């Protein structure tokens, strides 16, 4: 590998750098991902043996001088009640049982917790997106807002807001707001920022020639916003929405930590960690990962639905 093309995909390596790359086949794209995932799983099982061996020998196999074979040891470390590191199939089984064996409204059912968290996330995401849109439209149209507000919007994100979650909950709780809304407020705080920044960029993205055309049509500022700026900003908006909904989910989960909430993935994490139930902690984590992926996929679907209806120029600009 002495050519500077080593960084290009393997298929492109024989070509002159700069020539258009052929699209990678599906196999070439998923192969590496599968390999990495498989490697992670193998390492996980091995790490579980190493981490759990001590406890397994002490508690299950009858002390270090007991008679046990290596096979027994491995089997024990992969099937412990309270392992230091549970193995993937234990976690999968735990989720499966919690979803299968309990009714949907039982606090032992992970789906209930996932639904509670998803509600708060989606509400916060909706509020945050609306706020972000309003702020961006204001900032693009008023210099005062841009100068006085934009620095604070940036600064607001350097505040570790999740640390403030307990207070927001206390304040809103004493005002009589409990349940979903306080969590949604925290999710909103994390959601609005990426949307604001991306929309300010997006609303300013139309070319001079396009704005001039609108001017010759004697379009008002609102007409220009509706027919030119907003459509032009869509490709900027959706990547920001994906970031926002993931951030909102983290916000909702952390907001469930300090309240002693009965339901929600965060509450589940906290109770499991109090009782030292490691398998449950991991399954709550995995469930939140799945929920995060599902929510992001939802935004992706929305993106495809919206951008298909819009002009090919919007699709041409779409990068991801």
């Amino acid at each position, binding site marked *: *590998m*002495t*050519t*500077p*093309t*080593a*960084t290009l995909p*393997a298929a492109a390596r024989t070509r002159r*750098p*700069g020539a258009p790359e052929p699209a990678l086949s599906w196999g070439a*794209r998923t192969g*590496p*991902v599968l*390999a*990495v995932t498989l490697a992670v799983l193998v390492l996980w099982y091995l790490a579980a043996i190493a981490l759990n061996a001590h406890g397994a020998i002490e508690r299950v196999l009858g002390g270090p001088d007991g008679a046990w074979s290596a096979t027994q040891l491995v089997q024990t470390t992969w099937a412990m009640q309270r392992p*230091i590191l549970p193995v993937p199939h234990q976690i999968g089984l735990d989720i499966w049982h919690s979803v299968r064996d309990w009714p949907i409204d039982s606090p032992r059912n992970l789906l209930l917790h996932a639904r509670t968290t998803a509600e708060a996330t989606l509400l916060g995401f909706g509020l945050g997106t609306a706020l972000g849109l309003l702020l961006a439209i204001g900032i*693009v*149209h008023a*210099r*005062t807002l*841009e*100068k*006085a*507000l*934009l620095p*604070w919007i940036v*600064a607001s994100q*350097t*505040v*570790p807001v*999740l*640390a*403030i979650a*307990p*207070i927001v909950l*206390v304040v809103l709780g*004493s*005002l009589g707001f409990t349940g979903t809304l306080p969590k949604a407020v925290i999710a909103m705080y994390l959601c609005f920022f990426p949307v604001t920044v991306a929309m300010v960029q997006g609303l*300013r993205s139309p070319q*001079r020639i396009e*704005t*001039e055309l609108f*001017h010759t049509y004697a379009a008002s*500022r609102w007409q*220009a916003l509706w027919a030119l700026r907003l459509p032009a900003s869509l490709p900027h908006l959706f990547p920001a929405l994906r970031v926002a909904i993931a951030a909102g*989910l983290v916000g909702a989960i*952390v907001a469930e930590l*300090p309240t002693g909430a009965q339901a929600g993935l965060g509450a589940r994490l*906290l109770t*499991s*960690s109090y009782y*030292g139930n490691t398998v449950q902690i*991991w399954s*709550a*984590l995995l469930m*939140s*990962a799945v929920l*995060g*992926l599902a929510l*992001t996929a939802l935004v992706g679907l929305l993106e495809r639905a919206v951008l298909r209806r819009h002009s090919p120029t919007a699709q041409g600009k779409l990068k991801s």
Partner: protein
Amino acid sequence: MSHPIASLSGARVRPDAPGALLAVLALALLLLSLPYPALQLAGEDGFTLNPLAWWAVQAVAPGWVAWGTGLATGVAALLALRATPGRAATLALTLLTLAALGGLIALTPTEEQGAVGSGFWLCTGAVALLALVTVARVSALPLPRGLDAASALLFGLWVLLFWELLTTAFAVPRVLLPPPSSVAVALWTHAATLRDDLVQTVGKAVLIGYVLGCGLGVGVGIAIDRLPFLQRGLLPVASLTSTVPLVGVAPIAVMWFGFDWPSKAAVVVLMTFFPALIGTLAGLAAAGKLERELMFSYAASDRRTLLDLRLPVALPFIFNALKVNATLALIGAIVAEFFGSPTVGLGFRISTEASRMNMPLVWATIVVASAVGMLAYALLGRLERRVNFWHPAIRAAA
């Protein structure tokens, strides 16, 4: 600005004195307020209306404060009516409004003394409108580069002062929203405690975790630069982690590494690793084809291309990741302390004092954490400008 098309490209064609209408409204409010009492004083038989108009209030605060407030508001409103304000006039307007607001805060009675009346509120409304005018005026002024943040700072100052005024005038319970003054007092009285918390959380957990996490992320990103297979395998997996709330590993970290700072540092490492990796990979792929072909035509080795072209191009991406990570690291360490910590640390302080309803101290802790976050962000920004001085985006801003 005078070109008609300028009005479409984001900049508005404004009258040269923004806020003149607000100034008229403020003047009207002030005139309206004159006949009304400022304060309802608690007498022997409950509330007795102060017979005097608000600017002659005598029992609670010295009358001249009220007089001065009214006068300052009036002069400021008249100043705000001027069509073409210069720097001096804007400064005078700001100072007068500030004085009027200070007077109002000084006039506000405590709960035992009584409550504020309608005259007070009308005057407060006038001052609020004038405050908006000052922000608009300062934004419109052509200021030198050093004073870029002037209007934002002014806006922040108004928010703080009105927060102080409204929480005391409405007698908002401290548990809900303590006035800024009480937070400042808490900062002062608990300075030693907060310093220890800062050393515990930021000095140990955040710093060590941040350096390790970002270092590993950038290092792995550069290390697998030659291995496209690993790159294509790792990048999607790393991107997936951004949708996973990694903060959730905090309880596991506490189980594995104990209650003290190593568990927090572990959470921080995990949270900062992936953004740093993604930023590095994206940055290394960002060099343009033209530049790469140039290096190719110079017969530059891979290492040379990496050092002279691709790493410099990647730096803005890496710095972005570092900035995002600064906040992430703080959040990670503080949230991890909710799951168990020694009796010191910012997260510990927030959760225990919140449960004891000692809100001024909680807010003081938040002020400290936010100050650290902003400081880290600002420092990274300066470092980036020093390192990336050649970059078009930086040059455009300078």
